[in-house]
């Protein structure tokens, strides 16, 4: 294990693992929330359930904000030298 730690920057490698996991799964989940919420909001609006439709609309906006934030953070992360 010590020999491996000499060969590999374990700390950096672990950072790659956890950041990829959180960001990757986070983006997929956030976009899925957008898909779910916009579809539900459309259905509810058509059936005149405006209150619930607004709530799903808010969830969709939250999902979009999550995706945009992840993209922006990702870009900043890469351009940092």
């Amino acid at each position: 294990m010590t020999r491996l730690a000499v060969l590999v920057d374990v700390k950096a490698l672990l950072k790659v693992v956890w950041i990829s996991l959180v960001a990757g799964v986070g983006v997929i989940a956030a976009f899925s929330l957008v898909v779910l919420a916009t579809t539900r909001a459309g259905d509810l609006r058509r059936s005149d359930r405006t209150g619930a439709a607004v709530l799903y609309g808010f969830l969709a906006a939250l999902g979009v904000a999550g995706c945009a934030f992840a993209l922006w953070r990702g870009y900043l992360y890469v351009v940092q030298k």
Partner: protein
Amino acid sequence: MHHSDVILVLVVGMALAFDFTNGFHDTANVVATSISTRALPPRVAVAIAAVLNFVGAFVSLKVAAIVAKGIVHAGSVTTTIVFAGLIGAIAWNLVTWFFGLPSSSSHALIGGVVGATIAAHGTKAVIGEGVVGNVLIPAVIAPVLAFVVAAIGIIIAYRMVGRLRPGRVSRAYRLGQIVSGGLLALAHGTNDAQKTMGVMTLALAANGNISETAGVPTWVKLTAASAIALGTYSGGWRIIKTMGTRIIKMDSAQGFAAQGAGATVILTASHFGYPLSTTHVISGGVMGAGAAKRLSAVKWGVAGNIALAWLLTLPAAGGVGALVYGVTQIFGSGAAGPLVVTIACVGLIAMLFLRRAQGAEPAAVTVAE
């Protein structure tokens, strides 16, 4: 013109040729999922990927620095070694393209340079820790990580949208794929174009044109970015077919998950300077998105062939690199050896493309377009 300058010109030419084959070979990584789920028409997908690859090449330079300084001792590298390494990488890229196998251009390049260095100076000239820490271990971890991210992501996505009408869901994820595919192309540019920049910088330092500690010259950045963008635009349809339809038959949600997982892993690894294989990462993502739905959805035979190509990449490219270095030494230490090898290679490549052009239109074109 001194003979070492002739070799340098050949090296720069070969490096750009390699960069072109890198883009050509790896187009599939970036666009295959978007094309197979019909998120984008093939030509549009390839054009967007080419532009974003060009942009991505300028975004970060950490990978270039690792390739130039972290794999072999810069002091022991000559332009002939870099030349031989590039030939090894190009040869492996063309062989795997011919068989439609998505193998790693990055590992081919690193393998070629390491092989030629060993042929010239023995193993002492290779930075063992650099190869293991920067190449081999990330090569194992990256595809597994992309597999896990895509698998967890698609499970969550199916849980969330599984009860909605499939038509609407597909349309939404196709839209998402345009963004995730774009991000993937950008990530590819940040990781892959830099490897050629690293090798060109290594050759310039070896020839004394720049110091060993110098950064990547602007003209190197511009030409490398252009070559990978042009190669990407040319498109390797045979590998697109393998990546897009042969590993799994994917829906747009799986395509989005695979691309999202791939882009995050590549961008994060690029930030830390790991020259990982984008091919390995995307293949891992595609397999993860398929296996999470149903293990039998993945065609494990095709996946096995791809894994075999991965295992062979470093030794095969290294073997060709070493062989080419040996051949150049038959003609002495001047420019004659590299010139003879270049002429032979151009002839071989022309023959290969002529044979392909004379044969039937690649099946992938009819499928994809």
